[in-house]
Every structure is written in C-alpha cells, then in structure tokens.
C-alpha cells in the first residue's frame, strides 16, 4: 500500500539500506540483545546474540541506584546487591503494569525493598513506586535502564544508532503489562517495532513459522520463573492456546536445593555462615549444578571460619534433590495440555527455553511426557532474543524476501462495565489483532450530560472478577431525554495487543474524544518528565534529537507522497491535488527551520490531507490484485 508506496518486487523506491534493528529478551532474571547480521557480511543474514565488552551475552536484569542519582546495571549492580540490597532492584518485571494489590507478597523478590518503601498512590494511576537512594523509581524506569544498556551495547557492535527493536513479553501479559513494557522503551528512547510473545519468538528462532500446521509446546524454565505455553501454528498464524507455570519456581531453586544438601552434609546451618560465605556457597552450588550436566559426580566444599567441609555430589543424588521441583513443572505442562484440549501425543515440537533446561533430569522428564526429544540446537538462554532479532530484521525491512508474518490474537476479552456490575464484552478473546469494534450505548436518565466508562479485561461476567484497565468519563453530552443520546464507544487494539478506547456522542454532532491509558501505566506528562530526568545531557541535546527525528519523519512522508502522486495522481481531483501540493510546500518550508513543533504540525497536516488519497490507492490496489487473478481463478473457484 505504501502511500503508500506500491513497488514491484526488486524495484524498491529508495536504494536499499541496511537498517540496524535488534531483538531484546527483557527477562525477569536476565536480559539479552540479538541482531541479524548485514547481508554480505561473514554472518550473512544469521541472528547472533550481541555480547558485552567482557564477552558476556547475558545482562542480569538488576539495577542499582545510588544517592548521587547515578545508576548501574547488570553484573555491576548484582555485585553491589549484597551490600546495598534496598537500592538494588531485581525481578522488577513482576511489577510491570501492576498495582500493589496484584503483586501481593513482595517477599518473592530476590532483593526487595521493605514493604513500606513501596508507595501505592492512587492519584498517580496506581503505579508501584519503589523508594531508592536516588528517589522514587518505577518498574518501567528500571526496565528502561536495562533497555538502554542493551541498546548502547548493540549500537557499539553494529556501528551506529539503533533504528528499531522487537521486545518480547510473556504470552500471558495483559494490556497494562504490554503498555508498561512499551512505556519502558519510550523512556529508553527506543523505537519499538513490535512486542511479540516469548514462546512465539522461541518458535521463530527454530524456523517453525515455515512449518506445516501443528501444535508446539514451549517449555521455559528460567532462573526464577517457569512458563509453559502451547502454540498452534495454522498457515503462518501463531495462536497461544494456553499458558501455565509457576512464577516462583526456577533454576535458582535447584541451586538452593544443593545448598541445603551441603549444609546438611557439613552438619552446619545458614546462621553459621557470613553473608559473604553464604554467597560463595550459593555460587559454588550453581557451578556444581552446571557441571553435573556433563559429569556424573562433582566435588563441592564449604570453607568458613567455623566449618570446613569437602564433599561430592553425584548426578543421581542431585536428581533426587530436584525431583519434586521438576515434577511440579511436568504437572503444569499437563494442566496446560488440558486447557488446550490436547493430549501429549498431539504435540509436534517441544522447544526448550531458559538455561535451567540444560539439566539432564528436566530433559528426561520432558522427553517422557511428550514422547519425543525436545529441540535443543539453539542455546536455550538465547533462543527468545534470537527469534526477536529475526522478527526485527523482517519488520524493519532488511529481509525483503522474508515471508515471516506473525498474526496474533488477543489473549483476554475486553469489555466495559454495564448496569449491575456486569461486563459487556466488546472484543472477545482469540479475536485476530489488530481489531476495531464499536458499540453503541445510551443515557438512562433524562438530562444526563456525562457517561462513565469503565474498561475491563477478562473472561468472567462480573466486573469484580475481571481486571480493571481504565476508567474515564465522557462529558458534555447535550441534555436529552433518557435513551435519546447515541454514544459510540470504539475499542481499537493494535498489533501489539494494546488497547485504545474512545467515546463520542454521535447524534448531536457534539463529539468528545477520549483516549485512555490503562491503569498502572504512565500518562504522557509523566513520561515526558521521566524522559527529561533520564537524559544526562543538556536540554539542547534533547531538543536537537527531537528536531532531527521530526525532520526525518517529515522528509520521509514528503518523499512517500511525491512518489504516490507520480504514480497515481490521476486518482485526485484538482482541489484535492492543490490541497496536497500546498501541504507539501508548507512542510518543506518548515523542515529546514529549527522549530520541531512546527515540523510536527506540518507532518500531521500533510498526513490528514493525504488520508483519502492513500485509501483510494489501497482500494485500487486491492481491486487490481483481484482483477489480475480473476480470469483463471474464477474458473477453478480459487484465488
């Protein structure tokens, strides 16, 4: 459609340029970044994880804040965690798009600030704020620090600014959690091409999107969480049939099991060890676990001021230690199969994600359940980031031959509250996205001038059983008798699964348009404020960047419109053509100046005036595509 540039294959309007696009796995415990190498290079079109200066692929999802307001992330922050736990945030992904009531027991976090440091202020959209030495911090801001660090790493490796990113989210993330992830990217100054589901990314990394229709299980055992997803692939569409798991079960529990065993063997207890000695033991336990993947028996020791112990842990003994933990993941898999109405035998592929899936007992049990060996060719720590990178490369337009198209569905129904606390579903779960639905409502009292709209998400009939996403009021309805007003509520879900709701009174022509952001998200002014605070540069740098971005956008749009005019100018009458020409001239007049707002206004104006033209071109191309094929295809009844 390419205003909508309709270009023949191999006839790209602008000489093809490689664009720097990345895939980011923003994990609870660890995060990674990956990219597809430029074609023609040594790694010709292959996705690779980008490592830091020390050659490490993983960036622990940990952020430390200090009194000077400075932050550090990753291994550096993790090292400080022992000495300064309250200013070091980990596992903050659990807080994304959540209020305090949702999170419940905050002791599940590895490093949790005391409960009273968490302030839940209703007037600020209920975003959880964590008190640190550097002031109040949200999960979005902490995530933004991780994203910034990974983006900087990628920019160094790829030799320039990053133009777009695909970020992965758990399949069960609802609207608020997805929005919070996008907010974090905005704070990090990162342009998000698309949010995709983690299990889908893992399947893409294995190239399963090119496979025939099938059912796929993604078994994801991370450091602190376990997720299982069952996907259905149907003609290139990935649909998440069911998800399950345990948000407090992961490879860290395997380490703890070894620690408990060692303490018992050494006839000692945690209290006998200093914090440092305990930490040392925990690290040794992890190394022992990893070593047992390739060895039948591994030596382990405790060296402390009060006890010295040296022992040996066999694979069999380790299997016994973690037996119940692994059994719990298998039970969750069975429950998810049930939810998806499938049996283990109907699964075509099993994909393993997360470093803990290297443990032999895990592979053994998974193999037994699904009666097949799971896929293990791709590094389970990297598989999600690699899949995201492949999708990013395709979305940014580097891979023009790519056939990859992920069509997604909405995971939970969206609706609004009606009389009596009941939910009227407007978009049902499993509806393909993007999606637009409009529903008409009316006033129930004479002279009613406002209508409260409460947007909820969930499958239950009662509002109290669903998640509240947003509330807003439509005001300024002209007084009429009850039932006379026609209020149209429109739900728009974009390709990321993020909802936008608007409402207007249609009869009188008096229309009010309201955009809602979900609860637990940030409003625009807050994001602007945080962005301001997050820039260490002088404000001129920020302005310069905004100006540059506006210019690029303006020039891009003018080029696209000119191209479209050259091809299909005949679709316009003289008045329409004059309007567009005037808008192009106006945009070109301001693009060289340094007023970002004026450029932005000119771009918006040009966008408005070319909408109809773009629609006509689209319509023409749809009809042309039909015509071109109709002669042969009508005969045999197919297209």
């Amino acid at each position, binding site marked *: 459609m390419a205003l909508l540039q309709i270009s023949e294959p191999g006839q790209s309007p602008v000489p093809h340029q490689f*664009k720097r696009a990345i895939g980011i796995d923003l994990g609870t415990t660890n995060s990674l970044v990956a990219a597809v190498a430029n074609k023609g290079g040594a790694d010709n079109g292959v996705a690779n994880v980008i490592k830091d200066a020390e050659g490490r692929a993983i960036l622990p999802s940990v952020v430390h804040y200090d009194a000077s307001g400075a932050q550090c992330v990753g291994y550096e922050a993790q090292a400080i965690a022992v000495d300064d736990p309250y200013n070091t945030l980990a596992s903050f992904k659990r807080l994304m798009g959540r209020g305090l009531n949702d999170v419940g027991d905050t002791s599940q976090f590895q490093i949790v600030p005391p409960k009273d440091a968490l302030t839940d202020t209703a007037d600020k959209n209920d975003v959880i704020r964590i008190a640190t030495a550097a002031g109040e911090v949200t999960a979005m801001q902490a995530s933004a620090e991780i994203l910034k660090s990974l983006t900087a790493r990628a920019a160094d490796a790829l030799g320039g600014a990053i133009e777009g990113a695909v970020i992965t989210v758990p399949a069960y993330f609802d609207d608020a959690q997805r929005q919070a992830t996008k907010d974090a990217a905005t704070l990090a100054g990162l342009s998000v091409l698309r949010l995709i589901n983690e299990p889908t990314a893992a399947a893409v990394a294995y190239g399963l999107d090119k496979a025939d229709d099938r059912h796929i299980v993604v078994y994801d055992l991370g450091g602190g969480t376990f997720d299982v997803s069952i996907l259905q692939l149907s003609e290139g569409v990935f649909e998440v049939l069911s998800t399950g798991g345990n948000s407090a079960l992961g490879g860290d529990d395997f380490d703890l099991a070894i620690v408990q065993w060692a303490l018992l063997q050494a006839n000692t207890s945690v209290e006998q060890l200093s914090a440092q000695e305990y930490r040392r033991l925990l690290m040794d336990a992890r190394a022992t676990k990893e070593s047992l993947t390739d060895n039948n028996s591994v030596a382990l020791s405790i060296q402390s001021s009060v006890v010295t112990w040296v022992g040996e842990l066999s694979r069999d003994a380790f299997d016994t230690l973690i037996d119940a933990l692994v059994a719990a993941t298998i039970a969750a898999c069975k429950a998810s199969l049930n939810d998806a109405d499938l049996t283990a035998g109907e699964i075509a592929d099993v994909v393993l994600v997360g470093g803990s899936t290297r443990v032999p007992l895990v592979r053994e049990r998974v193999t037994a359940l699904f009666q097949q060996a799971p896929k293990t060719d791709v590094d389970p720590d990297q598989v999600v980031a690699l899949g995201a990178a492949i999708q990013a490369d395709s979305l940014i337009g580097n891979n023009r031959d790519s056939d990859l198209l992920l069509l997604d569905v909405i995971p939970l129904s969206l609706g609004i509250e009606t009389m009596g606390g009941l939910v009227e579903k407007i978009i049902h779960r499993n509806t393909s996205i993007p999606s637009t639905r409009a529903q008409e409502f009316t006033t129930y009292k004479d002279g009613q001038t406002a209508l409260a709209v409460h947007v909820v998400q969930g499958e239950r009939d009662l509002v109290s059983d669903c998640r509240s996403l947003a509330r807003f009021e439509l005001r300024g309805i002209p007084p009429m008798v009850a039932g006379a007003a026609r209020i149209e509520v429109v739900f728009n879900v974009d*390709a990321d699964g993020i909802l936008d709701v608007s409402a207007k009174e249609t009869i009188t022509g008096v229309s009010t348009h309201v955009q809602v952001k979900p609860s637990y998200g940030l409003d625009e002014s807050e994001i602007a404020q945080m962005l301001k605070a997050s820039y260490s540069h002088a404000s001129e740098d920020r302005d310069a960047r905004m100006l540059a971005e506006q210019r690029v956008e303006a020039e*891009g749009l003018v080029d*696209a419109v000119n191209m479209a005019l050259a091809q299909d100018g005949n679709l316009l009458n003289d008045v329409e053509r004059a309007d567009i020409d005037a808008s192009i001239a106006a945009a070109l007049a301001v693009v060289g100046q340094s007023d970002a707002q004026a450029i932005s206004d000119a771009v918006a104006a040009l966008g408005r005036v070319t909408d109809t033209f773009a*629609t006509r071109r*689209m319509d023409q191309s749809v009809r042309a595509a039909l015509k071109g094929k109709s002669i042969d295809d009508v005969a045999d009844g197919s*297209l």
Partner: protein
Amino acid sequence: MKLEHNFFILLGQAQQFTVDRAALKKRFRTLQREYHPDRYAAKTPQEQRLAVQFSAHLNTAFATLDNPVKRATHLLELSGVTIDHQNSTIKDPIFLMQQMETREAFDDARAENDLPALESLFNQVNAQFNACQQDFSILFDAAQLSASADEKNVRDTVGKMQFFEKLTDELTSLIRSLTQ
C-alpha cells in the same frame, strides 16, 4: 478513512451465502501479508496508522464471512435488510415448540452430566444448524430477496441459525469441560 464495506468484494467472493472457505482464507492471508502493520513497521506513522485500520478491517471482514450467522446478516445488510439480533423474534410456533423441547433436554442432560445424551444432542442440533444454513442458501442465493414474502422467511431463517449456533457453542464447551 472510507474502506470497502462489501466484504465479498474485499475478499474476492461471489456475493452469496455459499462461500469457498479455502479460497476465502487464502485471499485473506494474501491481503494480510500485503497490508498487515508489520509490513509498515519501519514506514511513516501515517502509513502505520492506515495499515492498522485496514488490517483490522480485513480481520473483521474475514471473521464476518467465515461465520454463517454473521455472513448471512452481512448479506442481508447489503440487500438493505437490517437485522437486530437482540430484538428480533421468530414467529414460527412449530420451531419454537421444538426448541423448547431441545432446551429442556439440554438442561436435563447438563444437570445429570450425561455425556452420551449431550453428545447425541450436539449431533442433532448441529444437523439442524446445517440444514438451516442449507435453507438460507437456497432462499437467498436463488431468490436474491425478490419478493417481500421471502424477506420474512429469510429473516426467520437467520434467527433460527443464530439460535442453533448459540446452542452448539454451549454444547461444545460443556462437552469439553466434561471430557477433561
């Protein structure tokens, strides 16, 4: 933004009740491949917005033509007959009697978790649903609503289809929950 309102034209199908579902799906995928927002992720914001709108429109079009009740309703709408599903009533006394009996049988089987009874009921209702679709296709595809008497008949048939659809949905989810 004014988009093609006739979903049959949009998805390249003859404007009739009988559709070639394989061709429909193929055409839908071809268009999504072309116009999905993912194809415009790196383009201008205006193009992205238009792609979202058009792609959403395609999703609605496909969901409409793929579902018999929605397809029939859309066909009637294109012929100038609007159906208000919530407020329309079927005035066929024999049909209503039969359906009350079916409902009772359904409630009894549900109360007793009687799986075989539910399954046989499902087969029965599903057969009626299919027959009803056949009726509609004969009425509509042949007559194209020439006479006003047909219109009443066609409306009733859509109402019956909707009734059967709802019941098959309920039966499917109940049978699924019992077999787990």
